[in-house]
């Protein structure tokens, strides 16, 4: 069992809530006791105002998951489960809005593996159970005017019309749309939102802390400007951003409603590519890979690999583009069909992919320390720590999705097939939600990968099955 210290921001938020709620009610009672009827009405009014502005949502979530890794992975099977209490508190007090989302989670994980290195099992901890207590999100926002708002808090900032992932978002590419029960971790942001005109909004966003997000290469603050336009049946946004130490990125998205049933959308980002050797040494610095041992084993035979750990981040790189275009059609009976295409200019060519696959194959036959690194990396991927919807190793992808909500008023289904055009691998995802009464929803989530061995979607797992339940108190 593991207990975490209560985060500082929780104390700040809780103090703010308590101060507002308690002070007003206590003072109101004191004044009442003193018989100061005039003041009493003021404080009573204040207490009423706070009470009227307070709201909450309380959900309990439980789920279990079986994941079958692929033959490349030295783990036979992963079982996991989680039970979470998710209260959300909201307070609107005049120009102030406070949001607090504390979480209590009990997580269980069990790894099955017969793999051994020098007579020792590759997985040291076969099962673990831990409880975790944290602030998932919080926010304090003040309206300086009817059209000007400043806020600070921990959020998972998402935008854009795409279903597969969000190319225009410099903070999160993964939009969490494949797991109905999971919550994406938040980061800490200071934001200023200025509604210039009902059709135009300008946001200044500063991402100042990593919050609960995990970074492979370490966190650096990122600053973005977001300009939104909403016009008749169309909208677009421009998002220039700059991460400290990087050269900057330009994101954009747009949507058009061609008819009441047919919509088109697009999202893109243009950015400077990063030298792959630099990324590799970043992995080493993060403690994930032992690059020296890889070198010694002759595994890093990549073209252009110099063996210089201080290689410049942008050496021999070009401007890269990530582009997603798609469209949706809603049928009269209620189902919606969506098609999306992704182009990733920074993705591997066939030649690069073959070389890297060779390295992975060699890695399975090499000294224990390297295999241990690979196991650690695999565990991180399989556990979901670095498990985005689309790993984006390659250049071209297609996604076809059919979503049909409220069949017979109780059944929600989503079927999605994501296909890598370059290596002909793919993944089928189905999410079935079933309403049970007024407070409960049951979920069944299944994923199955297809394709050649060591192709992108086949690299880590073969299939996963989840069953979950969400109860609203």
């Amino acid at each position, binding site marked *: 069992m593991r207990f975490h210290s209560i985060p500082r921001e929780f104390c700040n938020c809780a103090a703010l809530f308590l101060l507002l709620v308690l002070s007003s009610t206590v003072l109101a009672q004191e004044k009442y006791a003193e018989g100061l009827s005039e003041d009493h009405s003021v404080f009573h009014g204040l207490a009423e105002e706070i009470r009227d502005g307070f709201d909450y949502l309380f959900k309990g979530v439980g789920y279990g998951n079986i994941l079958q890794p692929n033959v490349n992975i030295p783990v036979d099977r992963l079982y996991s489960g989680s039970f979470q209490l998710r209260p959300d508190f909201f307070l609107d007090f005049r120009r102030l809005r406070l949001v607090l989302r504390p979480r209590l989670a009990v997580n269980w994980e069990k790894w099955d593996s017969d793999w051994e290195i020098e007579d020792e099992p590759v997985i040291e901890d076969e099962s673990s159970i831990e409880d975790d207590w944290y602030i998932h999100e919080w*926010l304090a926002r003040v309206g300086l005017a009817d059209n000007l708002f400043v806020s600070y808090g921990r959020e998972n900032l998402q935008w854009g019309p795409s279903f597969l992932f969000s190319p225009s978002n410099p903070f999160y590419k993964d939009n969490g749309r494949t797991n109905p029960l999971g919550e994406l971790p938040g980061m800490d942001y200071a934001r200023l939102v200025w509604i210039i005109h009902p059709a135009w909004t300008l946001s200044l966003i500063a991402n100042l802390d990593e919050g609960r997000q995990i970074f492979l290469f370490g966190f650096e603050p990122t600053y973005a400007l977001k300009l939104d336009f909403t016009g008749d049946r169309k*909208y677009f946004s421009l998002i220039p951003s700059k991460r400290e130490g990087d050269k900057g990125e330009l994101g954009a998205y747009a949507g058009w409603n061609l*008819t009441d049933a047919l*919509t088109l959308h697009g999202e893109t980002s243009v950015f400077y590519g990063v030298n792959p050797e630099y990324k590799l040494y970043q992995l080493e610095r993060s403690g994930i890979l032992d690059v020296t041992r890889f070198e010694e084993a002759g595994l890093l035979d990549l073209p252009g690999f110099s063996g210089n750990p201080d290689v410049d981040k942008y050496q021999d790189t070009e401007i890269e583009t990530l582009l997603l275009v798609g469209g949706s059609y809603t049928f009269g009976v209620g189902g919606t069909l969506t098609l999306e295409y992704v182009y990733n200019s920074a993705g591997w060519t066939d030649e690069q992919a073959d070389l890297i696959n060779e390295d992975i194959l060699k890695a399975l036959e090499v000294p224990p320390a390297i295999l241990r690194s690979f196991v650690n990396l695999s565990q991180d991927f399989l556990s979901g720590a670095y498990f985005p919807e689309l790993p984006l190793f390659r250049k071209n992808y297609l996604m076809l999705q059919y979503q049909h909500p409220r069949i017979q008023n109780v059944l929600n289904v989503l079927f999605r097939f994501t296909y890598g055009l370059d290596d002909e691998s793919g993944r089928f995802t189905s999410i079935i939600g079933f309403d049970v009464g007024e407070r409960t929803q049951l979920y069944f989530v299944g994923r199955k990968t297809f394709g050649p061995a060591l192709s992108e979607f086949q690299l880590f797992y073969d299939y996963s099955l989840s069953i979950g339940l969400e109860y609203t*108190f």
Partner: protein
Amino acid sequence: MEGKRTVLSVLLAIIIFWTGLSFAEPNPKEILRHADEARGNLEGVKWRVHIASTEGKRKQEREIEVKSKAYDFLAIFMAPPRVKGQKILMVSHNMWFMRPGLRKAVPVSPRQRLIGGAAYGDIAATNYADDYETTSLVADAFGGEECYLFDLKAITKNATYDRIKYWVSKERTLGIKAEFYTVSGKLFKSAIFEYNNEIQFQSKTQPFISKMIITDHLSGEDHTTMTFTEQEIAEIPAATFDLNLLMLG
């Protein structure tokens, strides 16, 4: 003098004739505009909608709070607990769906089903006066009331339906029945409307929709009833409809 009298008589006759024509042949657009005003097309209004739907033998209910300004609206689901906090936002005919836990607003089309026979677009105020052209206008009756029967064809992409037959009461100038047709001419949905609510707007009291009963003809005559209550004129700031401010909470 005689000439002046003749001119005045002719002018008077023209005015009487023109006025008489006006009463006999009311402007279809004006009738539709008046009917639209009783279905939410106001400068800032909020109301609650209770939706009860029967599909097969399954009953479902929703309680929704709606804030609307012209044709933009924000709908927040209040009940049942399972859907509390879900939101639908429509701005300039762009529509998004949000639910607690899902951090990204999902763009949806107005045709997407809300519950039972009600589509997301049915929450929105109507603008039949501008979104449709009248292809025929005849006299008819519904529920014992004399009506104008409009045959409306969509002329803008904003229209949720391709073709509508719309019965507007002659006496009250309110839409009391509608039939919605697919492009192929098939009847797929019909609705009847009641106006037992009132709202104060620009110093005058005007009727406001109180009930909409939708029959889904594609799925075996299932019924969905939308009941409108707690309607009031309210100042709705632009921030209410800003996605950047809506996602958290």
